[in-house]
């Protein structure tokens, strides 16, 4: 029996301990904001926070999250929108939107560690997150804007 916290709620899981966190979140916990993109930690669509750090949930087995705290896009802000989500709205970042929960989770993790990231910092934090629609320029602007808001 695996015990973990998801968005602040205690959960238990008695399925295959090798199941990636991603599929637990999507198919078992029914939190579908976290997306499947590649299954190999190559695209970042499945990014969530594990004890506050950004991880690719497709490549973290359930056995590795015992006793840990997981935050998904659904749980990132208890009151209204997170400043990063607000910036995403103001800059109108998304096109199809599928990768954006992962982008937002990655961006929040970056800003948690670095409140004033340079373009270079943003590039290196975000290069693992693919966007086939190509919204990178707006993502970069939105991160700068959120940084200002958080300052």
């Amino acid at each position, binding site marked *: 029996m695996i015990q973990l916290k998801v968005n602040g709620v205690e959960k238990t899981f008695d399925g295959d301990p090798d199941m990636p966190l991603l*599929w637990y979140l999507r198919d078992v916990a029914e939190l579908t904001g976290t*997306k499947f*993109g590649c299954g*190999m930690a190559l695209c970042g669509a499945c990014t969530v926070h594990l004890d506050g750090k950004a991880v690719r949930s497709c490549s973290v087995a359930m056995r590795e999250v015992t006793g840990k705290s997981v935050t998904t896009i659904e749980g990132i802000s208890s009151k209204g929108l997170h400043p990063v989500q607000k910036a995403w709205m103001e800059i109108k970042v998304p096109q199809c939107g*599928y990768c954006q*929960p992962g982008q937002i989770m990655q961006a929040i993790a970056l800003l948690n560690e670095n409140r004033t990231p340079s373009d270079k910092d943003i590039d290196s934090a975000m290069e693992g997150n693919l966007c*086939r629609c190509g919204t990178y*320029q707006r993502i970069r602007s939105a991160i700068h804007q959120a940084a200002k808001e958080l300052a």
Partner: protein
Amino acid sequence: MNAIQNVSRRGFLRAGVAAGAFVLAARVIPEPLWAEETGVFNPDLFLSISSDNTVTIIAARSEMGCGSRTSVPLVLADELDADWSKVKIQQALGDKKYGDQDTDGSHSVRGFFDQMRVTGATARTMLVMAAAQQWSVPIAECFTEPNLVVHKPTGKKLTYGELAAAAAKLPVPAKETVTLKKRSEWRYIGKDTAMYDLPDIVTGKAVFGMDAKMPGMVYASIEHPPVLGQKVNTYDDKAALQVKGVRQTVALDTFKPPHAFQPLGGVAVIADNTWAAFQGRRALKIEWSTSPNSVYNSAEFRKTLEATARQPGKVVRNVGDVDAEFAKGGKIVEAEYYTPHLAHASMETPVAVASYRDGKVETWAPSQSPQAVQGTVAGLLGIKPEDVTCHVTLLGGGFGRKSKPDQVAEAAVLSKKLGKPVKVVWSREDDIRFDYFHSVAALYMKAAIGNDGMPTAWLQRTVYPPIASTFDPLATYATDEMSLGWNNLPYNIPNHRSENGAAKAYVRIGWLRSVANIYHSFAINSFADELAVAAGKDPLEYLLQLIGPPRIVPLEYRKEEAEEGKKYPLETARLRKVVEVVAEKSNWAKRPRQKGRGFGIAAHRSFLTYVATVVEIEVDSQGQVTIPNVWTAVDAGTVVSPDNIRNQFEGAAAFGTSLALISEITVTNGVVNQTNFHDYQLARMNNAPRHTSVYIVESDAPPAGVGEPGLPPFAPALYNAVFAATGKRIRELPLSKANLV
């Protein structure tokens, strides 16, 4: 303009579906479809207004990131003078009553612009009539504000919700009495409105196909035949059935040619969750039959294509006599170009949920073409298309791949076999290996150069397995692709011939964002740059000279393209204009000219939109290319949402970077070599253009395409920049195969 007709006599207006509701069943379907239905009342609903003042507009086109689900209803809302904050958008089911629902070809706005305006204006007229009656005042004394009718002399107001029931009882006005808004009166068209789904997207609440579920559903993952057309001879599922969560396996029939949109066949693993299904698949042992397509090797095939491109092909456009001009001797320039297969690689892989019950199918799918879902599923299961209910979710990207419903058909077939709802999830490996690929192409160009350095004759030949092969395995010549930048060269050259050579397909070929424009624009714009260099002229000045004086290029249209050709003639003045704008914005005349840094330009009209792009690159001592700046100028006619256009064109620069720099699909013995994002690479934040500036040329022309036209000029502009920076002329995609040091 689609005329409004007074059709109330045959029930144009339908009584409200709920008490107090106004429902306008507008004549907003294409003429041919309507004609077939003459005399039959078919309540095509695009609009309703409820007594609580909510305006509901049906989006009949799919949302895959291009903004159609917002922009098309926005046009209706503008003419209705609706309050956008009170508008609810409801996604249409797949149903031919909506007309064309295939969200491709960059034609959602241009295909529905007039009809949406007419629908909105008709409803607005009826609401004003209802208010005037209620107040016993002349109609002329009333006007509208968002969701309100106002009586000018007294300032009295009634909301659309308050008027809905009364308006619903009125006859539909004759067309003479309906006035469309003037451009100056537009509230939303041409302004920036955020995508309707934006709040749901940033909070993770948006429902994509991947997120759809049905009660009691099981999950399926399918091991497809590695080579197109292979069948399952035998298979061993013992180990697969040992995987925790796996319930059973099901062998699937391989299509009978033509493959069209049919499933590929293979073995499905049915499980309690996606992960178990994926794991079960890895434990399958399958023996496949042979397939004639296993002879396919893309490296060898390239030589075949190139050999064909050196021989005369089928003539698709002829002006003057190129052969006579070539025979005169003088300066001749020739060049050959090559572009590989590409995979769409939408971030959301193909996925669908379907439930078969009592001869009917209900499905939730991220489909660009819900009517194709109906037709394909019905055909496979021997039921009627109208017995297939297709709910369209948001699409996590589409780019043409999701016009094909093969994965929806898989879910429906499995549901029928299992007697319960089934969700089919494609892995990334499935997505890349079993795509409907963008075609590989070889192109041959030849020009005779006059004393002024300008071409006196221009011959171009293109060869690739055509999309028609999807529907007819024997098809070797292109059809629709010819108008995608090949039989409509906009240059002012006295002798011109355009040809197409035959090629056979061994993998599934499909539409990928801007389709054949990708290789056609690559060859034409690269060759133009080569000729400029040969003539010792500035590439931009040379391009303007090629385009020549303002004129309408005389083109022959196929019957089905004739009307569009009339409405959207190829106007060289508009092409010149975007070139001039991008020249100014990029400061082309004063661009730095130094080793390792270069500017390139390309211009291309596709989907009726004129685009010119300048790409700036830097090449370091290792031959690594970075893209500091992209400038692109767009004339897309009347614009509904400028910010959405900017976003689409910024995105096209990133999509273009992928195919220009790093993406390539290769095939060995019929098997696709690439599997995931490590070997099928896409542009990321660190190698996508640093900054893309988009300039929209104001225009009153009818609206044109937006989703695709940004792509075709990108790769040639980048390659022309490579030449400027390095002196190396690279003639094949992607650039990662070239040595720039």
